[in-house]
């Protein structure tokens, strides 16, 4: 049977082969570089999660011992908890503000380019500079600008990044402020893809602005939102330098109340040169992000199938 393929079947097979080859030719230039320089080292790093390796001496297989070690480490548990809290608050707020800004700055308003540039600004400006300004505004001293405002409003001044109670909140606020312009730009690009005729049709049907937003803008922006949500979630789980700059301050001490996963990984890898436990921690981070991504991926697939 297998040898006696009909001409049509052969033709079909050839067409599929051709189709695959064309697709692979599109992917190859990027994929080869990606596989060699990124995927390979990543897989090597994941193998390392089951090894004991100091970066120099031969690695030694230790099974799941690295995972037992990190889950027995208070600092890792704190890091996991802090990262989760950080992501849970940062993702939705950044997303909503970025979308609102993008819609606002997509209107025909005077000085639009100026406002767009200005919003993008904190993202491109050097982190040293923006963190310094932020720390100046949100200083724990009673004379600090924000604390002065608090006093006038009858609120108790806070210690912001210097107190274990408020340090995460300070980092979250900073991160939203610094990054919203970045996601706004993505949304702005996405909004250019929304078909203008759909709005006209909706207007003819008597839809108001809110209805247009719900029934035209939001569905049309679905691929963009999918992208923004995933990148934003991943970036939240990978947060590192912001924490270092805000919570580390002038002596670089990030205590348990602010430590995050990548900071922990960095300490393990380059402070203690335990690349095995660092990789194990990264694998945990990877698993969390993968689950979140898969849920969203499935959600998107289901939707586009509808």
């Amino acid at each position, binding site marked *: 049977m297998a040898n006696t393929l009909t001409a049509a079947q052969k033709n079909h097979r050839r067409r599929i082969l051709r189709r*695959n080859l*064309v697709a692979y030719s*599109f*992917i190859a230039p*990027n*994929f080869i*570089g*990606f596989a060699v*320089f990124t*995927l*390979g080292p990543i897989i*090597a*790093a994941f193998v*390392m999660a089951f090894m004991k390796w100091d*970066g120099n001496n031969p690695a030694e297989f230790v099974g799941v011992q690295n995972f037992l070690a990190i889950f027995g480490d208070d600092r890792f548990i704190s890091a996991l908890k802090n990262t989760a809290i950080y992501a849970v608050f940062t993702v939705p707020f950044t997303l909503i503000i970025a979308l609102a800004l993008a819609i*606002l700055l997509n209107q025909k308003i005077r*000085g639009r*380019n*100026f*406002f*767009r540039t*200005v919003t993008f*600004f904190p*993202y*491109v*400006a*050097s982190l040293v*500079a923006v963190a310094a*300004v932020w720390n100046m*505004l949100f*200083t724990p001293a009673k*004379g600090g600008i924000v604390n002065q405002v608090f006093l006038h409003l009858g609120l108790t001044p806070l210690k912001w990044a210097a107190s274990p109670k408020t340090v995460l909140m300070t980092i979250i606020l900073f991160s939203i402020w610094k990054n919203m*312009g*970045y996601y706004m*730009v*993505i949304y*702005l*690009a*996405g909004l*250019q*893809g*929304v*078909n203008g005729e*759909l709005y006209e049709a909706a207007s003819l049907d008597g839809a108001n602005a809110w209805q247009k937003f719900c029934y035209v803008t939001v569905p049309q922006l679905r*691929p963009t939102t*999918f*992208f923004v949500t*995933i990148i934003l979630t991943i970036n939240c*789980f990978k947060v590192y330098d912001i924490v270092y700059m805000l919570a580390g301050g002038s002596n670089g001490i990030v205590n348990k109340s602010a430590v995050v996963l*990548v900071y922990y*990984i*960095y300490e393990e*890898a380059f402070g203690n040169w335990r690349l095995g436990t660092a*990789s194990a921690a*990264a694998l945990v981070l*990877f698993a969390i992000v*993968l689950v979140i*991504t*898969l849920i969203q991926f499935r959600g998107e697939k289901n939707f*586009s199938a509808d």
Partner: protein
Amino acid sequence: MVSKSKTKNRLIARIVIYALLLLLAFIMLVPFVWMVTASLKFNKDIFVVPYQWLSLQPRWQNYVDIWTKIPLLTFIRNTVKLTLIVTFLQILTSSFAAYAFAKLQFKGRDILFLSYIATIAVPWQVYMVPQFIMMRGMGLADTHLSIIFLQAFSAFGVFMMRQFYEGIPDSLCEAARIDGMSEYGIYSRIMLPLSKPALSTLIIFTFVNTWNDFLGPLIYLTTESKKTLQIGLKMFISQYSAEYGLIMAASCLSLIPVLIVFLALQKYFVEGIASTGVKG
């Protein structure tokens, strides 16, 4: 009567919007103003509380010193070269690959795509050491090529371009296929022109990331003549002191190209499908 109150409402709405925007602009511009004023100060005056926004004696010397204390011109030249090559390669290869992921059916599409997304989730610190050892094994340590390979094939670009292509109706491609256009033709003549906003965004992001990248060049580039601007910035932070005045002066300078790129590409944010008159 009705139209009068409507215009009045509209006017109020406008005022509220502009007030909000101005507030936003103010909040966003504070660090910029801080950077500029700090770049004109002595180091010891930068962290004085309360901060002196207006310095009576601006210290322009900082802008002279940054050119003499480090080989800034060489660093800028290297950074420009690396940034341009990386951005070019990134745009080319990722928009190419993204087309296949968005518009073509092929074996292993989803799993390959997921592997791309998954790698975004891995922090670089984890695979930095294996990657460095591998690159050195290839003889790429201390070469600009290593930075190019490191940056040019990012999964981020592929993911982003694919999402934007998803938003372009499949019917456009189908119609072109029926007309006998090859996939390469569809990519270059239909998809690329339609994805100008997305391409601009990717250019901006790649440009900013490569321009501001620090740890990569720091680990790979050890020869002075090959180093980049961001390493140069860190040279003002030494073991026992940090020259913030100089750092801010150099930061202000390094910001200019990024802003130029952003402003230049902004005009493409208004040319989407809607304005090119393609029927959905």
